[in-house]
């Protein structure tokens, strides 16, 4: 293409020159190249014409009366804002300092007099390319900004919906939970859930989905539903984990999964039960000794393995009042400094070691991260749960829509759970659901569940499995106790736990008798009951709890059979 050929789009070009001859000559050349021409005889006129007609390109003489080209160029650049209006200085100046001033004033190029039409056309074309480039960049920037606003709006709405699901738990209400999480953590794939079980234990989940954005958030929704639904119904970690894993395996694409730590913290039993699949190790922080017990990842993340291969084994650790459980996301460990070094476990451990005030642990970690990196990342999640005494809050259970007219009033049922069942099945949620068919018992569902859970695990662990609760007198024995429990359960090939429920009406109210019997050798009831209830003892906690929560408890058959009663009055 010849440089004299017209540009593919005609431009409006302002020419400012105080020499009428030069102005005429230049106008003729530019018009011949196919452009529209506006003219000005000095800088001030040039600014006026520019303001009025907004030309796309300016050819500006440097030295003019009234206002020179340099000042006019500054004005025009200011008026044109972000859009690029190229200014080509027309000059007979040859001194480099003068030429440099043309550029300093906002000029984009210069053209030496006398004019060479070929060079002029080429320069106009080159400047037009730059102008278009700038216009495209601005347009795309605005488009991106618009899309970004739109995305943020969508995220706000999605988050509002998600919060209804995710925060139906106790994460904000529980006085013993502290956490730190970006408000948009959901879109980083981080997920933090907490809820009380019917017996007043607390379930906490810290999860981290692969990937970011909407895909991560979409997986979080069903996970939260399973967590809250099953926790409220009294399911244990094992069943909840299995359900979560199966659900995620079914709905997520192959390359997506969810690293997670799920734990159950029991104030009554002074234990924490943990399953960690793919999360960085959390810690149990002992308040008296400062000892840290790592809660290491032992499993593949959720959503990777099929139900048959999924490993639901948990670990159980003793905790004392004031002890803390601390969990964190990989955003903490993978915070990188300018040289791509990772913050890592060792630096985190140092923060633990130097931390003097437990309440300032989060701040200390954050400070260390900022000092290491220079700024905070938005995908850092931490949570800390403290074991506190006092009456546990219990799950209120699902809301019931029935009127009570059809409530079963006079019935009994017997179950016998044998070895193959005891090994792998937890009948408690099912039994609780059955008992909550009785309206009068719903208000006591928490106490009912706690008592049932204690008596069932006594029957299983001390009765059928023959475990000695005295083992649990110190932390080491405690771990040994749970090791033996798992081992004996795996090898179990005989034995049973029988559960009998009997409901009889009494006026408008009624009485439910729960009878649990096991195949074990029994125990010396009077001797055990005569022992003082030592609140800080790790062993024998269950019985104290049962005696607090139920009105009447009786053993028979040499301790092999236990009976409790729950009564209710007419409903208001």
């Amino acid at each position: 293409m010849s440089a004299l050929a017209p540009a593919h789009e005609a431009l409006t070009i302002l020419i400012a020159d105080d020499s009428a001859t030069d102005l005429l000559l230049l106008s003729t050349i530019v018009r011949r190249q196919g452009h529209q021409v506006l003219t000005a005889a000095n800088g001030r006129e040039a600014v006026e014409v520019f303001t009025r007609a907004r030309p796309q390109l300016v050819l500006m003489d440097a030295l003019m009366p009234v206002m020179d080209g340099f000042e006019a160029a500054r004005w025009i650049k200011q008026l044109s804002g972000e859009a690029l209006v190229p200014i080509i200085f027309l000059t007979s100046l040859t001194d480099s300092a003068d030429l440099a001033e043309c550029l300093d004033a906002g000029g984009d190029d210069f053209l030496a007099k006398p004019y060479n039409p070929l060079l002029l056309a080429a320069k106009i074309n080159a400047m037009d390319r730059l102008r278009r480039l700038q216009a495209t960049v601005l347009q795309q920037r605005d488009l991106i900004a618009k899309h970004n606003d739109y995305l943020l709006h969508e995220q706000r709405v999605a988050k509002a919906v998600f919060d209804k699901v995710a925060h139906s738990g106790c994460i904000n209400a529980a006085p013993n939970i502290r956490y730190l999480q970006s408000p948009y953590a959901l879109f980083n794939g981080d997920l933090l859930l907490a809820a009380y079980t019917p017996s007043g234990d607390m379930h906490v989940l810290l999860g981290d989905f692969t990937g970011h954005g909407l895909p991560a958030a979409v997986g979080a929704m069903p996970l939260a539903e399973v967590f809250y639904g099953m926790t409220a119904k009294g399911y244990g970690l094992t069943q909840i984990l299995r359900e979560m894993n199966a659900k995620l395996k079914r709905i997520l694409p192959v390359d997506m999964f969810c690293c997670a730590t799920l734990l159950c913290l029991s104030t009554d039993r002074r234990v924490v039960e943990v399953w960690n699949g793919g999360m960085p190790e959390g810690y149990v922080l002992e308040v008296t000794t400062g000892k840290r017990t790592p809660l290491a990842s032992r499993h593949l993340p959720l959503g990777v393995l099929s139900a048959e291969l999924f490993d639901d084994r948990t670990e159980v650790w003793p905790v004392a009042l004031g002890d803390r459980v601390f969990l964190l996301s990989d955003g903490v460990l993978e915070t990188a400094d300018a040289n791509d070094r990772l913050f890592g476990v060792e630096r985190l451990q140092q923060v633990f070691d130097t931390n003097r005030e437990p309440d300032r642990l989060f701040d200390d970690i954050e400070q260390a991260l900022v000092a290491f990196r220079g700024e905070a990342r938005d995908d850092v999640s931490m949570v800390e749960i403290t074991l506190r005494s006092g009456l546990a809050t219990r799950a209120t259970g699902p809301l019931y829509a029935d009127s009570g007219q059809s409530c079963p009033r006079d019935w009994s049922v017997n179950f016998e759970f044998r070895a193959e069942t005891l090994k792998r099945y937890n009948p408690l949620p099912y039994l609780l659901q059955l008992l909550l068919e009785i309206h009068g018992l719903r208000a006591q569902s928490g106490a009912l569940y706690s008592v049932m859970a204690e008596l069932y695990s006594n029957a299983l662990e001390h009765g059928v499995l023959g475990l000695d609760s005295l083992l649990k007198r110190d932390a080491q024995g405690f771990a040994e106790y749970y090791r033996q429990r798992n081992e004996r359960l795996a090898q179990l090939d005989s034995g049973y736990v029988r559960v009998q429920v009997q409901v009889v009406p009494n006026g408008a109210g009624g009485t439910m008798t729960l009878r649990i019997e096991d195949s074990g050798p029994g125990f010396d009831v009077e001797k055990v009951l005569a022992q003082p209830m030592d609140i800080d003892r790790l062993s024998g906690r269950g019985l104290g709890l049962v005696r607090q929560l139920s009105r009447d408890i009786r053993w028979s058959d040499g301790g092999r059979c236990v009976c409790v009663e729950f009564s209710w009055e007419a409903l208001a």
Partner: protein
Amino acid sequence: MSVESVVSPDGKKLTIVIKGRFDFSSHQLFRDAYEPFYKAPDTYIVDLKDTTYLDSSALGMLLLLRDHAGGDESEVRVINSNSDVRKILAISNFDKLFDIN
């Protein structure tokens, strides 16, 4: 980062070599390294000798490869990982799915 794939002369072994950061940006390159082969190799080897870092999307990509290679029946080996990379693989317990050394 770069992804290279090398097939053994008998066509039974495919080695995928990943250099630099192994993260979401290598998604397409990684898939291109094993998907086009008409005749599936028996063994897949992911060589991480020059891999400086891997993130959870890289773990996801390994799962995709495993799935492509036949899931539970597959033979996928992950070799030569440095200590940082090995830590990440260990936390996720990927040694239960892959032969890692």
